[in-house]
């Protein structure tokens, strides 16, 4: 799974991915995120500790890619790649390698995290200009998608606007309300809007990543379930056609009997079930983490 994180320079993207790793490495409701490479994990944890103490990383000057894994209890559930773009990629022309890469990554992203610096929402008319490239890019790319895509609108630096949070929420409604409404109208996009703070008093740090993983996991579980049902039906049909005459004709034509075909379908279904069963409990548990959040789009709305 590829998760693309997008936002302007200084929107807190790098701080987010770092704080998220620190939070998820420690574990949330039995779920953990681990880096594929030990040294990457160690580096992220060191930086996460610094953020928890109020020391934020500088702006990144290139795309950073993190190969991560979702674990539940002691089981590895899913691998995913987190792509953190430097802010400039959003406002550079297609001559820029990063901008081209971003377009390509967003077109095939399995999850999208749009980061908006909440402090920028309180600048009146200028706020719309700040949010516009992000909204416009998201609309352009999402209009080409028909598959299930989780979309998180993360309002970062929420700790800074805490004293005027109602004002900031009203501004978010004003400037990203149309995007939220667009997500709400679809069955295949799954959106949430979530205030996030990463520093000494973290807030909702785990939500964006877990939302993306939850939607992806759900889609995967549903797909497996569909395939198993299909194979069961195929097995049933094959069994109904089996018999002595079929065995004789199959032997004559040197082709598999319906009984053999039914056995193959049963074996395939069994294999898929073995893959599905360990995912059911984590998928259910993940779902419960978002009960208090308003979700936009998807079949449930």
């Amino acid at each position, binding site marked *: 799974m590829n998760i693309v994180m997008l936002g302007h320079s200084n929107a807190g993207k790098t701080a987010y991915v770092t704080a998220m790793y620190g939070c998820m490495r420690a574990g949330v409701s039995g779920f953990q995120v681990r880096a594929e490479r030990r040294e990457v994990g160690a580096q992220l944890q060191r930086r996460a500790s610094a953020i928890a103490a109020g020391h934020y990383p500088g702006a990144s000057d290139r795309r950073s890619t993190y190969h991560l894994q979702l674990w539940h209890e002691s089981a590895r559930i899913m691998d995913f790649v987190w792509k953190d773009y430097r802010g400039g990629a959003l406002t550079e*022309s297609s001559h820029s390698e990063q*901008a081209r890469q971003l377009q390509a990554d967003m077109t095939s992203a399995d999850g999208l995290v749009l980061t908006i610096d909440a402090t920028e929402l309180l600048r009146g008319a200028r706020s719309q200009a700040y949010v*516009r*490239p992000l909204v*416009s890019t998201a609309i352009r790319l999402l*209009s080409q998608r028909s598959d299930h895509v989780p979309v998180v609108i993360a309002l970062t630096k929420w700790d800074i606007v805490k004293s005027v949070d109602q004002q900031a929420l009203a501004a978010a409604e004003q400037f990203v309300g149309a995007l939220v409404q667009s997500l709400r*109208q*679809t069955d295949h996009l799954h959106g949430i809007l979530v205030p996030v703070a990463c520093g000494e008093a973290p807030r909702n740090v785990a939500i964006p990543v877990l939302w993306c993983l939850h939607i992806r996991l759900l889609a995967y579980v549903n797909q497996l379930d569909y395939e198993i049902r299909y194979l069961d039906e195929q097995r049933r049909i094959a069994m109904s056609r089996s018999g002595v005459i079929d065995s004789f004709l199959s032997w004559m034509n040197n082709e598999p009997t319906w009984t053999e075909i039914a056995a193959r379908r049963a074996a395939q279904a069994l294999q898929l079930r073995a893959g599905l069963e360990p995912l059911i409990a984590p998928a259910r548990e993940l779902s419960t983490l978002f009960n208090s959040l308003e979700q936009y789009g998807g079949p449930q709305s």
Partner: protein
Amino acid sequence: MTIGRELKVTALGTKVSGKTTFLLGMYAELSAGGPHGYFLNAPDPDVDLDLGSRWDRLLDDGILPERTGADVIPYHFQFLDGIRPLIDIDWFDYRGGALTDAVEGSSGDVAELHARLQDSDCVYLVVDGGYLVDPISREVVRGTLAKTGLKRMSSLLQTVIQKKVQAEEPPPTLVLLITKSDVIPQRRREDLTSLSDDLRMLIPLAFTDGITTLVCPVTVGNFGLDDPSQVSVEEIDPHGLHLPIVFSLAEYMRQLALAAAYAGTAVGGRVAELEEELRALNTGVFRNRSKIGLARTELASIEEDQATYGYVFEQAAKRAEMLFGELGGLLVFRDGEAATDV
């Protein structure tokens, strides 16, 4: 599902009419999300970036967009309802030589513009509000027509409309777009009837039979009568920039709904004929199975068309109603009379 083909918009205006600033403001507003979750989006990210960054320069530093040397600037946009594309918009920004009387004879430029206008669904006549500060008297009509470019625009449109009428095609919808409307005194700006009367004097063609026209004052801010290249950012206060394109789409959808209703009625007549024919073919002892089969096939195909026209009518009429609802307070003229159905 898109329910229309492509909306062709041509904007005509002199080089200082404020057309470019209007376009930038309109795009900035609608690409961030307009009313009811509508979006205008440039499929080419570089175009989006260019239009957005030029608008940002105005917001950040008060720098008005430079007057480009190009005579014609084409843009391709998509109008979306949320993430669902509704219709493509082929936008043609014209400020070339064909707008001045002096080059009437230079056939290439004029011929190109004629062809474009002939093909347009909607034409914006962009008028600098600075010329409408005071009521238009008979004495100033001639001078105003020349300065605003309306004389030439009117002449070009006259030819196009005549050709359309001859070809039994609907003429383009018109938008009298008054830019820099902040310079027009508030009472006059709010009394659109008086402003429309003046425009009727300047461009009577826009208020004649068969023509639908929107009178739409827009402003980017309170910059006054001077025409500086840089303005005070505190004075930036855009108003109404999205309304012209909303009107264009509403009118397009209205006409699409009318066309679908007309087509639906026409095929409805054929359905009745075929049903009668089938009744006749199915009576008597000796029945012509081949003719019955053909009639049934045609009936099924026509019924399918009828359902499609019904769907298009329903969708387009609904969209038109919703979009017209956005134009509250503006005046739309049909056949020269103020319309009451918007």
